């Protein structure tokens, strides 16, 4: 007796194929770094779009997350008479977990969707075919610059998100909770360990890679005209968010075992 029905087997096969193609595209985008031409101009343009373009929204996200964290944790901490640890809790939570994940979510929503819709529109209007016909490899010209820019810019955005988040927590701690600024900042800074920083800096480039590769993959497999572009955009955001959460769990598990 077959364990899987024909429909289930076909779905499993399709999913495996999608994962395989996504992996191939990701590997190709990295291998292209060792093949000429390098398209540095396109890479810097993408760095500007991804990095500078996402700066304000990342800062806002970081600031209010830090502020809410301070509000929520101080309430619990005060019942133990440990409100002075608010700074530590905000900084450690942001640096280890919330900074990388929230930045990745913001970038996936803003940049991943943009990449998918741009490449999807180029595909349906035959610009990608025109590019190939003119002797250009689209994976080199379009995918690699976006992946490289995302790998480098997501960590920068994450660091900014962490800093602004700690600042948001500081405002709440000082103005609303009446915690001494020195106490907050000292506990926020002193309690951060090497392990926290490593965790906080290893995740963002991986998330950046996932977002850009998923965005490019969804864009480059668009079908069905403008409606298809919308579908690819949605799929890109949903898929990259899920992959960010799943990979976050496994990276954290792995890092906790070694650091």
């Amino acid at each position, binding site marked *: 007796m077959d364990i899987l029905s024909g429909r289930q087997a076909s779905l499993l096969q399709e999913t495996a194929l999608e994962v395989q193609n996504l992996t191939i595209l990701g590997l190709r985008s990295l291998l292209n770094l060792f093949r000429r*031409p390098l398209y540095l101009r396109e890479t810097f343009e993408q760095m500007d779009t991804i990095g500078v373009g996402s700066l304000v929204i990342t800062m806002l996200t970081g600031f209010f997350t830090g502020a809410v964290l301070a509000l929520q944790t101080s309430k619990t901490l005060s019942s133990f008479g440990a409100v002075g640890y608010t700074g530590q809790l905000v900084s450690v939570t942001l640096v280890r977990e919330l900074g990388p994940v929230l930045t990745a979510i913001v970038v996936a929503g803003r940049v991943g969707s943009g990449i998918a819709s741009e490449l999807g529109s180029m595909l349906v*209007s*035959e*610009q990608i*075919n*025109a*590019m*190939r*016909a*003119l*002797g*250009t*490899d689209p994976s080199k010209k379009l995918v690699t610059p976006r992946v490289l820019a995302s790998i480098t810019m997501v960590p920068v955005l994450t660091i900014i998100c962490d800093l602004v988040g700690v600042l948001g927590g500081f405002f709440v701690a000082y103005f609303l909770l009446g915690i001494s600024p020195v106490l907050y900042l000292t506990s926020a800074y002193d309690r951060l360990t090497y392990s926290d920083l490593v965790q906080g800096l290893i995740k963002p480039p991986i998330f950046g890679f996932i977002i850009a590769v998923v965005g490019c993959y969804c864009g480059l497999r668009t079908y069905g005209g403008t409606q298809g572009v919308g579908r690819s955009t949605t799929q890109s955001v949903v898929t990259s968010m899920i992959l960010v959460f799943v990979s976050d769990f496994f990276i954290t598990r792995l890092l906790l075992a070694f650091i």
Partner: protein
Amino acid sequence: MGDSNWDPLSPAIELKNVVKYYDDALILNNVSFTVRRGETKIILGGSGSGKSTILKLIIGLEKPDEGEIWIDGEEISRFRESDLMRVRQKIGMVFQEGALFDSLSVADNVAYRLHEQGELDEEEILAVVAKTLGFVDLEDAIEKMPSELSGGMRRRAAIARALVGSPRIMLYDEPTAGLDPLTARTINELVIKLRDLEGVSSVFVTHRLKDVFSMANQYLGHQDGVLRYMTEEEGNLCLVNTRLLMLRDGSIIFDGFDEEIRQSQDEYIQKFLA
């Protein structure tokens, strides 16, 4: 044009028993034809008959499931993408609707291939761009963005982009579709100009009979020291190097000259020409 492998006796394009499926649908069924050097092959057929697929196979954007595709004496159907890049330098393609890069100006679109090759400096590239845009009578649009161009201008800019690098083979995918008769005529005259002045081999996909008969009957030549488009009707000796090929449901049902297609007794062809 300085390719050491160039064999003047081999056909520019040759398809041998090509079969192509999309999923389970048969798109091309045992298609074979030859385009000689300097010849224009007009492919006629209804929507979905496989016309555009043939162009994509010739330039290597798609691979055949069976059969062989010979370009300039090389069998390309099993080539890897990196090898196809070299073959594509010999071919220019004009896509339906032009497929101009909408984030680049007309000048940058036309200069695209040269920028990618990186062999010329900016001044030399600009000179090539100006000359090519002059050929398609679009010098004034050099700084414009594709969104600012009319349909006809977009097609002419696409032809200019395809012409950069002096390809020996040109592929046109319905370049006159959706254009008014005057603009369509301008495009046809450009194709004739390339065929008769530059000796470019080409495949021209269309379902407009007006295109077919204007290209099959007109030629560009010198008369009293002036270049002009002439026709057989004017009593001139016709040296037109154009053949027609008709597809129906992925199979070739006609391959010959325009006089022959007019005399065809095939019911589908007669309906198509009516």
